[in-house]
């Protein structure tokens, strides 16, 4: 699956793999809502992702705002592929989770 959710006592990890595009957008939205509902820290794991499209970016951006409103910690885990960061920046997008990444070990 391109989008998976792992829940533990410490928080939720949304794992993204392959292309995060319109084809998986509905699933990503569902997973993000579910993760935020838990009220536990949410971490996004990009390591297996090969690309992120605009639908993926805006979902993550909206999820981050939602987390802010709800006072839920929302962060990305270290290890975002450079190609994704570059592609997103290239498009002038306000990519969410540009804040300091959490080390992978904390997941």
């Amino acid at each position: 699956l391109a989008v998976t959710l792992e829940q533990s006592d410490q928080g939720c990890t949304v794992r993204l793999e392959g292309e995060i595009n319109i084809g998986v957008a509905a699933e990503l939205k569902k997973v993000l809502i579910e993760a935020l509902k838990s009220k536990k820290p949410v971490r996004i794991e990009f390591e297996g992702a090969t690309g992120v499209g605009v639908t993926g970016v805006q979902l993550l951006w909206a999820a981050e705002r939602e987390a802010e409103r709800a006072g839920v910690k929302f962060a990305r885990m270290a290890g975002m592929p450079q190609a994704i960061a570059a592609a997103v920046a290239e498009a002038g997008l306000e990519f969410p989770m540009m804040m300091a990444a959490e080390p992978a070990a904390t997941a």
Partner: protein
Amino acid sequence: MTDKYKQAFQEEAREIVAELELALLALNETPEDRELVGRVFRAMHTIKGSGAMFGFDELAGFTHNLENAFDEVRNGRLKVTGELINLSLGALDQIKGMLEETSGPGEKTERILADLRRLTGKGETATAAAAAIAAVPETPTVAGSPTRDWVVRFYPGPGLMRTGADPLLLLRELKRLRSLRMKASMAAVPPLNELDAERCYIGWDMVLTTAAERQAISDVFIFVEDICELTIEPAAAESRGAIDEDAGKNKRDAAAEIALTPVAAEAARKDAEPAAGQREQNSPAIASRGRRETDSGPGAAGGAAANIRVPAARLDQFVDLVGELVTVQARLGELAMRREDPDVVAVAEEIERLTSALRESSMNIRMMPLRSTFEKFRRLVHDLARDLHKEVELTIEGADTELDKTVIDQLSDPLMHLIRNSMDHGIEAPEGRGTAGKRGTAKLHLSAKHSGASVLIGIADDGRGIDAQAVRERAIERKLVAPDAQLTEAEIFSLILAPGFSTAKTITDVSGRGVGMDVVKRSVEALRGTIEIASKPGAGTTVTLKLPLTLAIIDGLLVRIGEAYFVLPLASTLECIELTRQDIERANGKHVANVRGEIIPYIRLREYFDIRTERPEIEQIMVAETEGGRYGFVVDQVLGDHQTVIKNLGRLYRHVNIVSGATILGNGSVALILDPQRLVQEAVRDRAATGRANNREIKGRAHAVGAK
């Protein structure tokens, strides 16, 4: 890439390819037409760009080379020649194959690319071009041209993502024009719960520094121009400054959004909801043009497209349901009459009125102009003329004439056969035309016009015409007619349509009409149409197809014989007259009636269908126009006109030619819909089979069926 996006692309691309083909053929006629060159270039650019976007990399790579060639034409470095057009048309065939995924890179592709390289002096292999597109190199701009800044505002509309388009790829392509600074606006992104995951809410305000013209910039968005908000304006200093200041910053506060234009200030979320098209119409700077302009006129409410694409199967289902409604309405009408309740009658009449309007509307939905069917023959004529070394000018008239889509769908093949025959056998080579004192370039005229409930389609050429005597001799030789048969010229020409007549090689030498005419006849008859041929030796031939407007519902005349009901198409019915016992006696038992001095043969349907009920004193003859002249069909009673919803009888009855379908009457009983044309043919054939026929039957005259 999901199938639905891929299919959407394929559908769009097929249309673009068809337009491109026409533009190339038109360019062949007027090689200096700059606008046409632009049209060709933009169409190729769209196919390339959208192909890459939808994962058709080979198609994109191949088209890239073709696009480059036309870029050279656009820049005046390459001339439009017959060779370039033919090469481009061949390339278009390859593109069609790639689009349908029936062909990929191969010998033919490489040969075309090699020819393109030879013509343009540059180019790449398909694979290299595909890789180049994927790598998004910087687009070469006109060397030495001064650059300028453009403010580009691109806000994808609600439906953009669902077409499979990717805004990021468009931005990448824009970047190829040289230098791009941009700011993405997230202001319209709604809260997560309200967000439509398959829609793009992000918009971009950009400053593009390029030597490219406005046209080249708007070409980047050509595939999405009608589903996004797009403005391209020369930059004012403050706009550039605003973009530069904000570029690269992460601003989450929507209130802090910069406003490049007054319109941009409206980009806050609640204002972003209305469709982009509405704002597009207000902006003078919108680079909206091209093939879709007619789709969304000022009347398009809320910016929604005025036209929508509906699968043909859904349309058929709708028409079927209307058909069912017509049937039920007829039952209701009959019930209301029986009950004699004024309230019920009033409701039944209202429903009848509405049903009639609905039926008309549904029929109109099915109607399509013949234009696309006609226009695609330009390519056929072009290719055949080239192959046959003939010069042919195709003219088209009445292309806006509308016909039922089912009829149109089945019309292409017979028309193609007729055009092929005309080009192959009717039209002479230029030298032959010169000897005959004709212009070297032959004329082929394709026309359509309404004629009552029918459409007449004409295929006329100014070729050598048909030698009637040669056709007659050939028909006698093949035992299609007796040596002493008295035939009119029209009857002789109609022999060309007989099966087997045109299979011999010599036919081409004899008559100028060749293979496939019997196929044409069968196809046209399957559409309940007729064919008429007129020709003058040395002057040319005109083939006229008469086709019904629709195959789904017809206006019929309901008749009764005993307890059986039949429907005769109203369009072919001329009049109704009485047939008394005295009339029958006066004709000495022959099945002919004297109608105001004209002897009309008739078929007694009671006998034909072996209906063994008592014959009334006075019967009715429905006189109809058929291919073989006027014929009568004798019935017990004419009940009146009837909106007839045609139901197929199914495979079991597919060989029963005299019946074109059935319909359900208001009382629930079934009435067969008769095909007068076929009835006459069958009657003549039956007569011949019993050995009582004589050669006059070929003319379909009265006595041939009279003694049945």
